[in-house]
């Protein structure tokens, strides 16, 4: 009873709304009898229900509500015309939406194809070929390579046509378009031969003209299509496959391996076709062996090969000649038919000798073709019957060198005082063991001389000769490179012997003038008698074994005299020269630059040292540029220059400002005019107003 009490609101409402089951109602009313509180609530609820019924009744939808709704609906949703509503309704169906999207995509794809230029004709073609293939598959015997069979079928049709050739049937009606070029042209050829004998020539000639053109148009298309046609892959058993394998092996002994391979070949029902071998410089053998085995045994044979030695590489190729084979076969069949036909013509219909000869000639051509094709087929058969294995064998350590050769190359650069003399001296050394391979002497227009020589020296003589040449002139640079060349391989070759080869010597000769000095000195000597001291200097230089390289003399307007002398002495005489110079006058500004070449071992005592000297005197007179007048002149000149400069600046400023000033002036003028015009108008208006 407690639950009823708790659920009083619910039960009360349900009772009032007559939604209680009989059992519930009984229970509820029983509770009301017991419970005063609930009874009270029940009474209130009943009143509540009544009030609600009364108040709500006023507010609920009036009687004409539905009709009003419908008519308003009609007003607000006008009826659309049948077609539009049909379309809009249709567009709401999911299936239609999907179809529409698909159609749009398809259209886009088609447009894309059109834009990219992928021709729609190609598609048509492939459809066409697949149709023909389907048609052909119904025929007996067409099982495996559909493309090939479709084609051969076409051919045989062409052959049929040839056999029917005498019948004057219009060629357009025949499926001649499917036949390939050679056969059809052929048939046309024969037709023309035939018709020339027959009385009804005109009609046939017209046909003759037509016949070759139609296959010419269609056959390239046919050839092009063939790759696109679906070709079913059949089992390999009925295919014509040429299997080839190549293997490269490294073996211990060449002869032994050949024996083993021969044995394997016989085991696998094969034979050794060719062998070849070649002995290397280091005594190792290298060779090739070609083995023919049955294709089915090829894999096993290759497996055995691995046992012989180290397999370097192996390749297995398979060439499918099925199509070519059947092509040739069917062409052969056609050619044979043709042959028979021709023989028949020869036997029966021939009366004209010229025609007879023509047919005879044709027959010869056909027979030649037959033979060629038979040969081709036979060759293919042989290729297919046996797999070819080409094995390259090489003995181990193939690259072990047999010997070494020491190659020496020497490069010698010399400075000579007299190039030509030294050049001739070197040339005089020539003998059977000292061969001059190249000698040239160059003189340029400034009088510089240089020479180049290449010599080949016998190994035992080389050192002596090189030393002799070195003594002839100053050595600037000497370079020897030795190269060890292995023969017959690139390994270490412990047992190989080493030999010395001829020495190649390249000499360049140049004048010592061109040599850069080891030490360069510049100095100034002040003296009053420049020319005299210069003479003394020359004497000193000669004494010390120096050579004057250049000298010059000059005098400036102020009476100063300059004499510059540059000379070159050997290093050993350098200090003596310097001391002698001190006797000439006051030595100033001595600077010495020495090129130390720590890497090179040169003959320092004979190395050249350059000394360049300036002997000068102080001027005797006063410069023309001093004094009052000169100063005054300079001052006025500078003043004038300053004036000119400022004038230029003003010009620039004017050039900058003038356009702006012009523009501003123009704008101001226009503004004034406008303002004046406006004022006048205003005045006129006022006057008019005043008049009124």
């Amino acid at each position, binding site marked *: 009873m407690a639950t009823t009490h708790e659920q009083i609101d619910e039960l009360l409402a349900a009772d009032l709304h007559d939604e209680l089951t009989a059992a519930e109602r009984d229970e509820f009313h029983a509770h009301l009898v017991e419970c005063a509180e609930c009874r009270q*609530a029940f009474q209130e609820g009943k009143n509540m229900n009544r009030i609600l019924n009364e108040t709500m009744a006023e507010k609920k939808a009036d009687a004409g509500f539905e009709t009003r709704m419908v008519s308003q609906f009609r007003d607000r949703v006008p009826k659309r015309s049948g077609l539009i509503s049909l379309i809009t309704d249709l567009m709401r169906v999911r299936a239609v939406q999907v179809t529409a999207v698909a159609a749009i995509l398809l259209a886009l794809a088609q447009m894309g194809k059109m834009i990219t230029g992928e021709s729609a004709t190609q598609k048509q073609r492939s459809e066409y070929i697949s149709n023909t293939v389907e048609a052909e598959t119904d025929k007996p015997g067409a099982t495996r390579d559909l493309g090939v069979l479709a084609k051969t079928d076409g051919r045989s049709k062409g052959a049929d046509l040839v056999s029917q050739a005498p019948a004057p049937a219009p060629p357009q009606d025949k499926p001649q378009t499917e036949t390939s070029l050679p056969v059809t042209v052929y048939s046309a050829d024969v037709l023309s031969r035939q018709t020339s004998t027959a009385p009804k020539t005109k009609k046939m000639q017209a046909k003759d003209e037509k016949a070759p053109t139609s296959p010419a148009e269609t056959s390239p298309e046919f050839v092009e299509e063939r790759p696109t046609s679906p070709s079913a892959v059949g089992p390999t058993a009925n295919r014509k496959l040429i299997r080839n394998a190549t293997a490269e092996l490294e073996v211990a002994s060449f002869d032994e391996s050949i024996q083993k391979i021969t044995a394997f070949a016989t085991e696998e029902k094969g034979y050794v076709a060719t062998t070849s071998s070649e002995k290397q410089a280091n005594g190792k053998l290298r060779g090739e062996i070609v083995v023919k085995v049955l294709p089915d045994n090829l894999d096993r044979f290759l497996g055995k090969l691995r046992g012989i030695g180290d397999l370097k590489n192996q390749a297995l190729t398979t060439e499918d000649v099925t199509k070519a084979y059947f092509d040739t076969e069917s062409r052969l069949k056609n050619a044979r038919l043709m042959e028979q036909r021709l023989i028949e013509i020869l036997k029966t219909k021939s009366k004209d000798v010229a025609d007879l000869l023509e047919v005879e000639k044709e027959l010869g051509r056909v027979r030649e073709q037959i033979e060629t094709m038979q040969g081709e087929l036979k060759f293919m058969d042989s290729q297919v019957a046996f797999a070819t294995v080409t094995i390259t064998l090489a003995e181990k350590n193939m690259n072990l060198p047999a010997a070494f050769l020491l190659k020496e190359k020497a490069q010698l650069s010399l400075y000579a005082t007299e190039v030509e003399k030294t050049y001739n001296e070197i040339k005089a050394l020539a003998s059977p063991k000292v061969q001059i391979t190249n000698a040239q002497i160059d003189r340029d227009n400034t009088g510089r001389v240089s020479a180049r020589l290449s010599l080949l020296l016998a190994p035992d003589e080389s050192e002596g000769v090189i030393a002799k040449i070195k003594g002839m002139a100053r050595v600037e640079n000497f370079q020897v490179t030795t190269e060890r060349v292995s023969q017959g391989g690139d390994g270490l070759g412990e047992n190989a012997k080493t030999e010395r080869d001829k020495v190649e010597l390249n000499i360049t000769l140049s004048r010592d003038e061109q040599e850069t000095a080891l030490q360069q000195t510049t100095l100034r000597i002040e003296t009053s008698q420049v020319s005299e001291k210069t003479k003394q200097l020359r004497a000193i230089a000669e004494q010390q074994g120096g050579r004057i390289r250049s000298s010059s003399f000059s005098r400036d307007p102020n009476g100063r005299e300059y004499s510059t002398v540059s000379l070159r002495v050997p290093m050993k005489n350098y200090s003596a020269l310097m001391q002698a110079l001190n006797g000439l006058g006051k030595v100033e500004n001595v600077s010495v630059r020495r090129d130390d070449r720590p890497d090179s071992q040169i003959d320092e005592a004979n190395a050249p040292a350059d000394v360049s000297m300036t002997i000068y005197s102080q001027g005797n007179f006063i410069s023309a540029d001093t004094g009052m007048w000169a100063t005054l002149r300079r001052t006025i000149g500078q003043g004038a220059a300053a004036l000119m400069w400022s004038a230029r600046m003003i010009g620039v400023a004017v050039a900058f400002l003038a356009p702006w000033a012009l523009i501003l002036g123009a704008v101001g003028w226009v503004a004034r005019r406008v303002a004046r015009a406006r004022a006048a108008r205003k005045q006129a208006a006022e006057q008019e107003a005043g008049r009124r």
Partner: protein
Amino acid sequence: MDSSEQAIFRAAVQGDREAFEMVIRSVSRNLFAIAYGVLQNREEAEDVVQDTFVKAWKSRWRVRDSAKLPAWLATIARHRARDLARKKRPEPLSENFESQEVVENASQTADLDGEVRSALAQLPELHRVALTLRYFEDLDYGTIEQTLGLTNGALRGILGRALGLMRKRLKPALASIG
């Protein structure tokens, strides 16, 4: 629901105007009750119902199961009414009825109709809608549940609570009548 009704619903969903008008006739009163339940205003409720039909007609293709067309229409009507109510009164009607202090004596002087109205206004929306559906159209519980998308038997609790609250709020007035 019998099969002829089903057929009408299907035709209406598929765009048959006559069928749709039949649907309008059959459900417009219920929709009015719902809209009135939310809005407590007859003119507004009528507008809502009208809008509901127009909108439903335009988007009828969204209905997957044509049998649920009336419930779908009821949902639209309720949403539209609620939107309108929100627009009219930015602050939502108090949903927190439990904690609301029951005003017992405040409305003693006011007339009964006004008291009922204010008591109704204090009810949660769903309760009010359920009440209007019941008292306007005298629908049985099952139909109301179906229309409002309620689970079986939920309505008894809702109506019970609604009536209970009303009763407590209108106690003085009821006592005076009693």
